[in-house]
């Protein structure tokens, strides 16, 4: 569906995308994840045909999007990061207008219902909530019955319930057999929706895999943390804990490969001293931790703002 080799894009001296490779297969929901300014929007706009690349090979539906024609646009749908609706039209009318642009569009009313706007079909779009407007964006991307959909940060700025509703709609695209290329800076979004994730940071792909695989790479490290019990100093901690632990005002945390022996030592020590271990937590890193760790370096470099 999508194949990218060595993609580069520079704006003057600034290299927004520094040689990335991507492969997206038919029927999968692919999440392109990264912080603002990492090169996500630049990349997706090159794939959509809105922007010319500086180097590398790109093929979307077998065509170079730089040479995209009407036939190609029949087969793709876009939800752009920022694109307001026409306030004077209703959702039904808006979808009907866009249906006219395609050779074999989906049914208008069914598509409006599919994105959960059945009851709002005849209300002016100006009166819809942000979440409802975004779902109408998805309906417009879907009305041409495309094989491939690009969703550029579809839930940015949403409250949790609007986000969940949007996720239901996007998840539903899988049942329609659509291939979805989703960009997001929300880890939970990638985790909730995607079959595969690529993490981009400062113009480079720093990790790819299923959400499980990405979380799993660092699975071996488990973090044990607690607050320092009253009347106990760092020197009082058992050696096994003290060595390699981070001790600060917030408490003690230590990363280990196998948490079981260390926990036994720690709890034995606490029992013997007759102190508690307030706020004791044993946790494996989430995908979020992996993401933060992978993208942290780039942030410290002061990567530029998102070039749009």
């Amino acid at each position, binding site marked *: 569906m999508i194949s990218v080799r060595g993609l580069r894009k520079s704006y003057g001296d600034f290299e927004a995308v520094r040689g990335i490779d991507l492969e997206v297969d038919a029927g999968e929901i692919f999440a392109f994840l990264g912080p603002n300014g990492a090169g996500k929007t630049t990349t997706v706009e090159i794939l*959509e045909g809105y922007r010319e690349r500086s180097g590398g090979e790109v093929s979307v539906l077998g065509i170079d999007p730089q040479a995209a024609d009407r036939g190609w646009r029949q087969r793709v749908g876009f939800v752009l990061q*920022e694109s307001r609706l026409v306030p004077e039209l209703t959702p039904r009318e808006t979808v009907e207008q866009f249906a006219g642009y395609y*050779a074999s569009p989906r049914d208008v009313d069914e598509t409006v219902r599919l994105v959960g706007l059945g009851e709002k079909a005849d209300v002016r779009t100006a009166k819809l909530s942000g979440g409802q407007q975004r779902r109408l964006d998805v309906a417009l991307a879907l009305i041409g019955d495309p094989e491939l959909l690009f969703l550029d940060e579809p839930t940015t700025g949403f409250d949790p319930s609007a986000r969940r509703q949007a996720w239901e709609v996007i998840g539903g695209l899988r049942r329609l057999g659509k291939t979805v290329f989703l960009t997001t800076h929300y880890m939970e979004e990638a985790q909730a929706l995607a079959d595969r994730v690529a993490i981009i940071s400062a113009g480079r792909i720093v990790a790819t895999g299923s959400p499980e695989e990405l979380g799993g790479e660092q699975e071996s490290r488990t973090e044990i943390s607690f607050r320092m019990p009253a009347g106990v100093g760092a020197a009082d901690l058992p050696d096994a804990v003290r060595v390699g632990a981070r001790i600060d005002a917030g408490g003690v945390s230590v990363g280990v490969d196998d948490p079981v022996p260390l926990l036994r030592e720690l709890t034995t020590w606490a029992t013997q001293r007759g102190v508690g271990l307030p706020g004791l937590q044993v946790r494996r890193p989430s995908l979020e931790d992996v993401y933060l760790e992978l993208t942290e370096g780039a942030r410290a470099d002061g990567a530029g703002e998102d070039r749009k």
Partner: protein
Amino acid sequence: MTGRALVRHQFRFDQKIFWRNPAAVFFTALLPLIFLFMLATLFKDNEISGLDVKGATYYVPAIITLAVISATTVKLATNLPAEREAGQLKRVRGTPLPPATFVAGRVGNSLVISVIMVALISVVGALVYGVTIPTHTMPAMLVTLAVGAFSFSCLGFALAAVIPTAEAAPAVTNATVLPLYFLSGVFIPQNEIPDGVLNFADAFPIRHFFEAMFTAWDPNTTGSGFELGHLAVVVAWGLLGLAIAIRLFRWEPRR
């Protein structure tokens, strides 16, 4: 859909959007009528010296000039930059809709609004102020209207192409057309305007469009009323606008 059906489809939605927007209807449709009532009432019996017509007869073609430019240049040059900035043009560009069809829908929309306005102004002029609707110069009036609406639509796309932001659009557009209305005799009868000023206004298309429209409405016109020289200047400006629009028009917001 065939090409023509798609233009009709696009035009139908442009019309729906226009009539549902109270601000657009006020500025494009009502404001010219308000000007007509004001000016024609104030000056209806004043003889316009040198032209040998009454004030009301002068102001009907003058306000038609205003109305056509409002429905074309002003409307396009204020709406398109706003739609570009809102990402609406970018979204449309991502669909299979051919750009030419989009443009045709908009020009058709402006043309139809212009025709409606000319009809309204003519009827008000005839019924309220006793202005004679042209008969033997009617073909000249319609040709002038068509040529003007197309040319001023092209200029609207040209202005939309060079105006950078939605915020700048109304200011730039009004700063362009309002002084030219005054200098071209649309608001002030031309016998009150010094020759030098009229010569300056002759460099721009508004004055020529008005003169061609005036001849078609002038009861003293003896021939068919075609002002080919004036229309040629209007067309030349339209083609210049078209060239600028083709070169510089952008669908995506500037950032």
